């Protein structure tokens, strides 16, 4: 009998499980891995970094995983701080070295998926320094606006991960031109502020001298 293979979805958004785009997208990939017989589990990085005990149990889960899907939002061209802190621990302690394989999904608020390139390079460097094998990654733009499409488009990527075949290049179509995205986005921020009766203070400068 084939040994059980364990796949772990690491969610690197503070919004966590059930509330983040990172979970929705990573969850889709995890579902496919489950269909392929992987034992699957989800772990929220921010929760793991909340206390030393949580960290130790999270690192134990990582140490037992064969496949790690790290799904996270782009934060200032890189990863949210707790994700970096978690990866620092993994690399320093060689957790999963020589065993874990890493696939990364990075999605950002801007429409251009190319903006994820630096963060993808950082993820690949992490894999090299931690002794993990690098399966690759996808960078997605404007994912929050079209996440149903994106989730569907991730299916062939997930199939390739499960089968150990070459990961297809993204088959995503652009949802809308960047100028329209900016235009619509600016209206969206105003509407969001109106809900909080904060439209007038949108441009406030509380720290101006």
């Amino acid at each position, binding site marked *: 009998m084939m040994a059980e293979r364990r796949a772990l979805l690491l969610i690197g958004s503070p919004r966590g499980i059930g509330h983040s785009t990172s979970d929705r997208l990573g969850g889709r990939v995890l579902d496919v891995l489950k269909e392929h017989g992987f034992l699957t589990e989800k772990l929220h990085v921010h929760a793991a970094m909340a206390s030393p005990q949580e960290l130790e149990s999270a690192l134990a889960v990582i140490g037992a995983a064969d496949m790690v899907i790290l799904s996270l939002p782009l*934060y*200032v061209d890189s990863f949210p701080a707790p994700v970096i802190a978690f990866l620092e621990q993994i690399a320093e302690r060689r957790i999963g070295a020589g065993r874990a394989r890493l696939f990364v999904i990075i999605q950002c608020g801007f429409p251009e998926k190319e903006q994820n390139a630096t963060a993808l390079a950082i993820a690949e460097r992490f894999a090299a320094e931690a002794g993990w094998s690098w399966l690759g990654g996808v960078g997605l733009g404007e994912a929050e606006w079209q996440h149903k499409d994106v989730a569907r488009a991730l299916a062939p990527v997930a199939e390739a991960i499960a089968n150990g075949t070459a990961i297809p290049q993204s088959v995503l179509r652009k949802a809308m031109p960047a100028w329209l995205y900016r235009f619509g*986005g600016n209206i969206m921020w105003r509407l969001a502020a109106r809900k909080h009766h904060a439209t007038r203070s949108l441009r406030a400068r509380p720290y101006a001298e």
Partner: protein
Amino acid sequence: MNAVVLDGARGTECRGALAALQQALAEAGHTTEVIPLRERTIAPCRGCFGCWVTTAGECVIDDAGRQVARAIARCDLLVYLTPVTFGGVSSELKKAVDRMLPDILPFFARVNGETHHHWRYQKSPRLMGLGVLPRPDREAENIFKTLIERNALNLNAPRTAAAVVTPESDLRATAAALAKAVT
């Protein structure tokens, strides 16, 4: 100019670089505030966008992250000092950088043919990055320099410069060159 150094060291690895940096900034005529981030309790950004749509330019979390955002809003030169971590910045530095979001406006703008945001205040700071590595590593250095350039675009920084030092580097010369490049 008024410089704010975000010191993202996790231990003593950036000590020499910080001393050289302080001297170079002083010689270039800047007043400098150093914020040792590992001594500050700064909760992670919650990704709620409250600082954009509810509390207008201030984070909903009341901790030292607010003081960092205020210092950045008021400075002319923002300096990242960090051990180069997987080519990027350390978790200590990043916990402050993520909490800088209140200083940025929600509205999208086109910058260099890409979508970015405008800075909330009249003037964006210039951005300097000084990374510290235990040994020369061209790949990590390239990622780091690209990251600083990308961050400068996101902050609309009018000028930017980055360098990586190792124990073999001439710290004083590197810091002086960086200070010159952003002055």
